[in-house]
């Protein structure tokens, strides 16, 4: 049982640390992605008018 306890402790802590780092990265990168998406959509909306 002690082996399982040690394993789950490590698993929990490591996963949460990875998630914390990923959350910061996704928060910053996701904001940039949204701006890129809007830019792309603005261009797409304007295309028929240009033709």
């Amino acid at each position, binding site marked *: 049982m002690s082996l399982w306890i040690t394993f789950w402790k490590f698993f929990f802590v490591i996963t949460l640390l*990875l998630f914390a780092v990923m*959350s910061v990265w*996704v928060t910053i990168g996701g904001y940039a992605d949204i701006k890129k998406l809007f830019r792309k959509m603005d261009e797409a909306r304007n295309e028929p008018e240009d033709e």
Partner: protein
Amino acid sequence: MNPEHAAILAETNFATLDWIIVFAYLSISLVIGLYVRKYVVNMAGYITAGRGLGTCLGIATLTGTEMGLVTVMYSAQKGFTGGFAAFHIALVAGVVTFFVGISGFIVGKLRGTGVLTIPEYYSQRFDKKTRILGGIMLALGGILNMGLFLKVGSLFIVGVCGLSQTGWALPGVMIFLLVLVLIYTVMGGMFSVVVTDYIQFVVLSAGLLITTGLAIYHIGWDTMFQVVAENMGEAGFNPLTTGGGFGAEYVLWMAFTAGLVSCALWPTAVARALAAEDVATVKKQYMFSSISFMVRFLVPNFLGIAAFVFIAVKAPEIKAAFFPTDGSAPMDNLYAMPILLGRIIPSGLLGLISASMIAAFMSTHDSYLLVWSSVITQDIIAPIRGGMSTKGRILCTRVSIVVIGLYILYWGLMYKGSDDIWDYMAVTGAIYFTGSFAVLVGGLYWKRASSTGAFMALLSGLGAILGLGPVQQMLGLDIPGARVGLTTVVFSVLVMIIASLLFPDKQTETKTMGSSSLTETEAAL
């Protein structure tokens, strides 16, 4: 509800400030969701956001969708009843998702075909009747699966806010949240969904990490392991032990459902792969999302365990309600986690945490509504009618969203079933995914897979209905849901192989297995 139980629920730190935070958050989500509706100009834009999702936005929206409040609730319930052994669900889910990301198994190939929905691939690779049947099975399994989301999510909100369990509170919360989600999903489609999912990801991530820290601070890290060891013994840690709540068969079923199905077969997850910029983005998105796929089970499991320990050692007055010794009915253990949060988190922060949970609720509902309704339009109604205009498709999708919303409200208000939410969800979902696993893998990786094989494999998925409690009672059966599910998967694969060999397609070589091509919908648009 028992008055004593209602009194326990009424005791919470939730105050006026928390209400202000929650309403501010909801208003921001609604305004942004409505603002982006201007980008909806065609069906591809409406259901895949113009295929403009970058890696980070893809991870955010995938996490937001798959980490729903219903997942938080049933995972907490698993932690409450199964202890740390429940962590195995997070482990297998993360490992399987990571390998799907590395290999691109199913999702990479599917994105390469250029289709908008899974049944559309059935049409591209097999034929129209397989697409329509696939669409019906998907919509049936998916909408049934979603039936309990609204009620369970609202139970959490009512529980953590300390609202009365009787009277207007529960239906009021259900109707309010549903209307909110319907408005921005109907108007903005996938654009609204991904942008609000992003906000919801940010709020949810912060909320989960803060809540975990507070639970450890209030209860004690070592105390949690010690109390679980004393009360559950080996079964509280070892998921493979006999006599515990899990076992090897259950772990294997979780690897399939919480792992492979959740990330590579479930349409709401696959919708993100299909909306990604390219195959490389899909792979990256899945590799990084494997962390979220672990956390979506791990943290709620942990909070469920924390609730168990809190009730066992720190709140004896509540312990009697959950574990009565006088023969009275125990309190529904779904309430354990909301009670914990309502008591250990201070006012102000509780508003933020509640907003994060509401975020989880909304981000799941919007995506599910959009995916099922787009399948109804694209894969059932449009093929049967033999073509529809862009405006007609968007209108049909919007109407379907509202109808599904009304159904889940009705189901949530009327449902009086047992507490086995996860079992209910796994079985209803299995109606779709057991057959689709055979059809997708066969179609993408086996040249000799035929339309007849695919059609029959999809129908085989109906065997999963045998896993439902009421059906088993009716037939006098007593078979674990995990066994029924795994057997149905094997059966569908065998049906796919045998029927394909017996009834091969005449022009198999002309069908698209996984290469990019102009899809039927794109061509029509």
